[in-house]
């Protein structure tokens, strides 16, 4: 009889997301990005949703891409809230989730977006 010991879920989950607008000229700085994430959680899960701590670890303003960190208890809530978020100040937008991992190192490389230089 094998005994399986589980360490439980990982402490934090890391997501690489980017925010896409139909109108690409709209500039979003890191504070506005965090506010949009909080707004997404607010519409979907109310005030208890905004109570979960989501950290923006890295933000790329040109591509509106960020690495987020969330506690494992709020992970599915965050992802579902980002998926169902469609409008910000009368502009259509969408969150694209590129990578998700419980280990931050795994986000260093993405085989889907990796460009192999062709000589």
């Amino acid at each position: 009889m094998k005994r399986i010991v589980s360490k439980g879920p990982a402490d934090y989950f890391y997501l690489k997301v980017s925010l896409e607008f139909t109108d690409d000229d709209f500039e979003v700085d890191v504070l506005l990005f965090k506010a949009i994430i909080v707004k997404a959680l607010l519409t979907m899960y109310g005030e208890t949703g905004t109570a979960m701590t989501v950290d923006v670890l890295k933000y790329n303003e040109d591509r509106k891409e960020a690495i987020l960190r969330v506690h494992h208890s709020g992970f599915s809530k965050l992802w579902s809230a980002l998926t169902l978020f469609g409008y910000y100040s009368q502009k259509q937008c969408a969150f694209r989730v590129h990578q998700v991992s419980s280990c931050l190192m795994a986000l260093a490389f993405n085989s889907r977006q990796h460009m192999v230089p062709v000589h």
Partner: protein
Amino acid sequence: MVRFKNRYLLCELVLEKDCLVYPIEQKEVYYVVRQAIERCHGDYGAGVTQGGMNVKYLNVYTKTVLIRVRREYYKLLWSSIPFIKSIGRQKLFFHSLHIGGTIRSCQKFLVKYGQQQLAVLLQKCKTQEERKAVQRATIHCTWLKGLSNFENVKHTEDDDFSD
């Protein structure tokens, strides 16, 4: 077995200005509770509780409310209730007393709670008349309880308890 299991939340309305009767309708209580759930738990909370939620009983004289909700989502309702501050223009708050699986269990709790409250009221009595009235009510309750336990015992009703 496929059956919808529910939880019944028993609450007491505590008004700002305690008047005997304030005209509140079941509809109003329902909308206020829906709003509170939507504020605290968002679209998810509102959607998930909408199917099974119902204000089963409302008594404006005793200010008791009984709200039904599906068993899986009773915590969403329970946690949103404290955030209700008013209904219409009347300021009040919900004092949640008991969560039961059936209406009958809530009624049983209400009977016991009423008896406990009588004991509290007795301490708060200011005039001799009030004290006598509360004592009479307490004795009547315990007599009724004793009667339900021993159904065959005959009592002469008003002999021992006339003041």
